[in-house]
């Protein structure tokens, strides 16, 4: 077990080095004039010259790479072209709003997706299975950004139920003091007992939450179903049934436990999808997170910011997969 985790950690570090290498290659080697790209289209000749020295472009490539790695290790992702502020700082400010969305969709994926997959596998070939399969293949075929717009059309424009976007109503933002402890709006308002803010925040989360959550729910349901179907034909399940265990115990405790490996991998994968889907949906809902940040960076040709988000997301995804693999390693069959 210890050896497995150690090996996996080592592999994770190698992969992170590779990720850093690719982003280095993308920003410093591919562009014909990396310095000009780095300071943006409106930079003066002096600014470009300064960037050339700052980035170490006057030095050989391997020296550049070591400097690049050194910066990364110190958490220095450069400054945003638009605000001139450190990107790490801006990421930190934008992160909580995105994490809230990602958490909601992951909870939905686990608590709706997995049961849906289990029921579907258990009733294979019946109408409920057909329905849930159609649902899960349907939602993974939807363009996420389009879902956001359609929900806005339906629930804001036509039915006037949910707000168009933002994290809070303007009225509340103007009249009440917004608690700032951790930066997680819902958590902070809950801790400080500001239930009006909490309710308002929840209300604003419904549409973006559904938009972001549909894909992972479908993905997890689909994977859980196929993982379970393979397990349900195994001898030990037949044995458990012949002992007279109820179907519920056989299904939810005997079979599901053995699918934990593929399920946790797919949950990690779905978090990755969700993170990227926030890039597409947050700007639609004026949600003040990483997604809006990268979307506006793309429009403003803010290359350091785009790269900052890329590196940050890739690293968190690597760590996430590491955790998923370690969870899988709890299964003794994998360790061997």
């Amino acid at each position, binding site marked *: 077990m210890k050896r497995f985790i150690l090996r996996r950690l080592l592999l994770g570090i190698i992969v992170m080095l590779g990720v850093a290498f690719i982003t280095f290659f993308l920003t410093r080697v591919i562009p014909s004039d990396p310095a000009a790209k780095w300071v943006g289209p409106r930079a003066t000749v002096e600014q470009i010259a300064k960037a050339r020295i700052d980035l170490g472009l006057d030095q050989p490539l391997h020296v550049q790479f070591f400097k690049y790695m050194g910066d990364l290790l110190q958490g220095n992702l450069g400054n945003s072209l638009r605000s001139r502020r450190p990107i790490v700082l801006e990421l930190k400010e934008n992160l909580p709003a995105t994490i809230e969305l990602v958490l909601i969709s992951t909870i939905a994926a686990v608590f709706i997706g997995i049961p849906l997959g289990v029921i579907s596998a258990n009733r294979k070939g019946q109408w409920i299975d057909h329905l849930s399969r159609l649902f899960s293949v349907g939602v993974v*075929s939807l*363009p996420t950004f389009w879902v956001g717009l359609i929900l806005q059309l339906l629930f804001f424009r036509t039915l006037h139920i949910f707000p168009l976007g933002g994290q809070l109503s303007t009225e509340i933002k103007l009249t009440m003091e917004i608690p700032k402890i951790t930066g997680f709006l819902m958590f902070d308002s809950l801790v400080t007992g500001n239930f009006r803010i909490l309710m308002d925040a929840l209300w604003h989360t419904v549409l973006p939450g559904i938009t972001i959550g549909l894909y992972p729910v479908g993905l997890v349901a689909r994977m859980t179903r196929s993982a379970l179907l393979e397990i349900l034909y195994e001898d030990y399940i037949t044995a458990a049934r012949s002992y007279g265990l109820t179907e519920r115990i056989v299904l939810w405790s005997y079979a599901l436990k053995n699918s934990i490996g593929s399920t946790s991998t797919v949950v990690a994968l779905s978090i990755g999808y969700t993170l990227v889907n926030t890039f597409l949906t947050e700007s639609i809902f004026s949600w003040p997170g990483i997604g809006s940040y990268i979307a506006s960076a793309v429009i403003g040709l803010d290359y350091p910011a*785009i790269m900052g988000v890329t590196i940050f997301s890739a690293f968190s995804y690597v760590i996430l997969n590491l955790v998923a693999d370690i969870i899988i390693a709890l299964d003794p069959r994998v360790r061997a």
Partner: protein
Amino acid sequence: MQGFSDFNKTLQPSIREFRMSFYLLNRNRLQRISLIVIVLLVLVAVFAPFIAPYPGHAISDTNPDDKLQPPSTRYWFGTDELGRDMLSRVIYGTRISLQTALIAVGMALLIGVPLGAIAGGLGGVMDEIIMRITDVFLSFPPLLLAIAISAFMGPNLRNAMLAIIISWWPWYTRIIRGQAVSIRERQFVRAARAIGTPKMTIIFKHILPNTFAPVIVQASMDIGGVILTIAALSFLGLGAQPPTPEWGLLISTSRTYFLNAWWYSTFPGIAIFITVLVFNLIGDGMREVLDPKTRKF
């Protein structure tokens, strides 16, 4: 002629196999409908200039007198902010999406499949090197690498396609490698090795042809995935540029008007949805038919 009949004889089992698979695939109602829809989509893409009611509206023509008209008998899908017929633009969009998706998946296969076969067929150091490289590429969340690449190469449809190819090939490498490893020690490969067949001949003539089934499944699902990705990149402003009638771009430009013009975003989205859905359904169906475990006669 002798050569031809030999060729025919060696092909016959695979033709029979293909017809059997096609029959099984076609037997399921949902998959039959999907197949029909795919054929229709291809026809729409090929004959777009003849089907579109206002072919000129697809790219350059504008029609300011009829801007933002709701759907009517004249404009079935309504018009956009320049008075262009949305139906014509969505029809031309089919062409763009199918074409880019086919090219992207094809190129990714061309890179990924041989690498996977070499990794799995040779084993050893080569295998280790190739697979660690794929690990790095696959450790980016989906779409993210494509976003970064197309942002840095400059936003246009061709670069978006390149970005997708670069971030997609490792999936095929991984699948083919897994297959190749399991085939490497089979009797017929050992026999080939025993009579001194060169390594590369073994890999490409004996191992590779037997690894295709799961890749075909993956590729057909990926056509849907690539269409979604292209649309997403264009939506972010990193893919197709105006006035190209690319579906994702149509939805992106609709954002300014959609609250008062529901048809503008609705129809391109439905087009994406249906196209991706049918490719996913066919992929699902193929998996069941091609996997001996789930194959039922």
